[in-house]
């Protein structure tokens, strides 16, 4: 009986023979390698269209006007002494900071409004409010230009019909700056809305309940719960938007081309004017690079705050 049991007992199959694998095979099977290969097309695009042109532009900015010899930081030193350059710096700062402040404000207000809508209707409102952001910017700016057109402005027609004055939207420096900032705010606010809406939804409801029990009103809840919980998101979106707004080109180019009399020029449009239109490519490259240290310093301060708050949590 024991022999029968032993003869019919399960005998595990022999282990397969181990085939030795090379290093390359092992490398290709690692997760990090697979991940790298999936991201490789994007890396190539970024290297080819962003990093390489950026490095080439740095090289160009160190050459003389005819691009025949190296002059080091001569172009940058030259720009420091130009009145127009400092005007462009001032205008870029006014444009970027004002636009970002308003975008953030509108983002906070509209995100609260949308968040308080019944869940059923929220989706279509979100979709509608995102429309400005999804239309290609130069196309939408062209529509705005028609609305502000010096001869056939729809806004002035409407104002005229209501007995109001004719406003020189694009020919007066104040109004021209107003228009460029307005278009940028219109275009960029949906981004802030979406980010802040997502942040609002991540705030635990129990905090508001606890605050309500303690007798906090709406404003107190906003100041003591909502804002602190959203602070990091606000910081990151402001930083991102500052960088993108500083580097804006389309809006000013289409609406005003930097006029009237250079009062709406920002870095990108002025760099184009000098570099491509006037043929001084090294100086144009130097102008466009001035954005980099300004943005880098802002990024350091803002991200330091984010990291600090992250550590506290």
């Amino acid at each position, binding site marked *: 009986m024991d022999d029968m049991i032993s003869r019919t007992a399960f005998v595990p199959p022999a282990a397969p023979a181990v085939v030795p694998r090379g290093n390359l095979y092992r490398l290709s099977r690692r997760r990090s390698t697979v991940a790298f290969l999936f991201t490789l097309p994007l890396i190539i695009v970024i290297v080819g269209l962003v990093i390489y042109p950026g490095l080439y532009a740095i090289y160009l900015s160190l050459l003389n006007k005819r691009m025949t010899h190296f002059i080091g930081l001569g172009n940058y030193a030259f720009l420091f002494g130009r009145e127009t350059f400092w005007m462009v710096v001032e205008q870029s700062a006014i444009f970027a900071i004002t636009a970002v402040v308003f975008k953030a404000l509108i983002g906070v207000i509209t995100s609260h409004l949308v968040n308080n809508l019944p869940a059923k209707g929220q989706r279509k409102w979100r979709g509608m409010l995102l429309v400005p952001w999804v239309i290609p910017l130069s196309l939408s700016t062209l529509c705005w230009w028609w609305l502000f057109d010096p*001869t056939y402005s729809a806004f002035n027609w409407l104002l005229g019909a209501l007995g109001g004055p004719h406003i*020189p939207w694009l020919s007066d420096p104040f109004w021209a700056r107003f228009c460029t900032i307005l278009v940028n705010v219109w275009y960029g606010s949906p981004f802030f809305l979406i980010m802040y809406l997502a942040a609002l939804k991540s705030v635990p409801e129990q905090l508001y309940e606890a605050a309500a029990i303690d007798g906090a009103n709406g404003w107190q809840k906003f100041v003591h719960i909502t804002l602190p919980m959203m602070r990091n998101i606000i910081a990151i979106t402001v930083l991102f938007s500052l960088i993108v707004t500083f580097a804006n080109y389309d809006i000013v180019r289409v609406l005003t081309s930097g006029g009237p009399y250079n009062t709406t020029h920002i870095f990108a449009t002025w760099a184009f004017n000098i570099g491509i239109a006037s*043929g001084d490519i090294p100086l144009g490259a130097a102008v466009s690079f001035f954005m980099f240290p300004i943005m880098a310093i802002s990024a350091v301060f803002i991200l330091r705050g984010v990291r600090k708050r992250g550590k506290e949590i």
Partner: protein
Amino acid sequence: MKTTTLSRRKFLRRTALATTAAVALPYMRTSYSAGRLALGVWDHWVPGANDTLTKICNEWGEKNHVDVHIDFITSVGDKDILTASAEAQAHTGHDIMQHRSWQIQVHRNVLEPVDDVIDKLVKEHGPISTISAYLANYEGKWRGVPAVIGSQIKPCCSRIDLYKQHTGVDVTKIFPYGDTRDPALVESWNWDLYLSTAEKLFKAGYPVGLPMGQTSDAIDWVGALFRSYGAVFIDEKDNIKIDSDETRAAIEYARKLMAVNPPDVFAWDDSGNNKWLISGKGSSIMNPPSAWSVAKRDNIKVAEQCWTHDMPRGPKGRFAPYLPFFYGVWSFGSNKSAAKDLVHHIVDKPQAKRQVEASNGYDLPAFKSYYDFDTWKKVEPPLGTVYNYPPRGDEELSIAGYPARPDVASQIYNQSIQTVMIAKVTQGRQKVDDVIKWASGELEGYLRG
């Protein structure tokens, strides 16, 4: 198994037979055996004008067995300038590229000398305009051939009826259809008369429309104004001469003239003055016949009253703002000799006539001997509307920034320093001395090597 082998003897015999056949048989020319040419050309405003150039190039291509390919590149958003800049940096692209006025000197180091083409054209058709030479002849070598397509001047285009009714001036009498100009009348058409009529028209509700922005229509007429007052910003020897009585006189005049323009002119782009005239509100602009062409389509009542005529005369002469385009042959091209042949063919008189006709008289060739084309005589309404478009009297062609070195003048032009000065004084209410001081500082910067 049977095998075949090729012996040395068989190989030599077959090779000899093949070579003999190749030499002895008549040479069968295949299509496009002379190669391929790619052109990058400005996309014309006037509908149909592109088709004429395509036909001209295809005809030449068929005759010379060259495969010609044309890309029409718009100037909207400066795409033509961007394309040329990219090709110049990358050393690859079209064989022939059309360039706007200043771009020849920008790309002079990568453009093939075309003195042979120019010499041939000058021998056949007479001298080329001074401004074309100023813009395309660099260090004694021509780097571009003046094109017909796109080349333009921006003289006055005035409403006959409004001038007669509100100012008593008949522009068709001063600049008639035909060679019957009265020198005294022509002499009377100066900036003072222009201003006095502009004031009357402003009061009547039909202002002249002169852009004062930072686009080429504004820069061009203001450049002609400064030149007609004798104002020189930088001379040919790099001396800054902006701080002069002539500059102040021109600015003071502009201050008075801008007061009788619509307030929005500071924001007009290159379509602003066209729209102003076509709307029926404008009495005069300074533009090529494109505004009249569009008015013919959209507002025939306005078109019937349009008359193109000379610029006003200043203390130092009468200057017409001129913007020539050029064909350049890239030095890195692979078929340069065919490219030069094609350029010569396109610019030659019979082909030029066809291009001028297709553009309704908009395109202005660089050779005075071409001004006898009948297009300018026959387009209407009214008959003779663009007869005075080619300079027929004492008008001298000019470009803002002249006579500074082209690489400096291009910055005076493209940075729109002249219009910015006038805008700062008029709209910005800044002092003339302060504005001249600011401009002087800018000009110093343009002189950097």
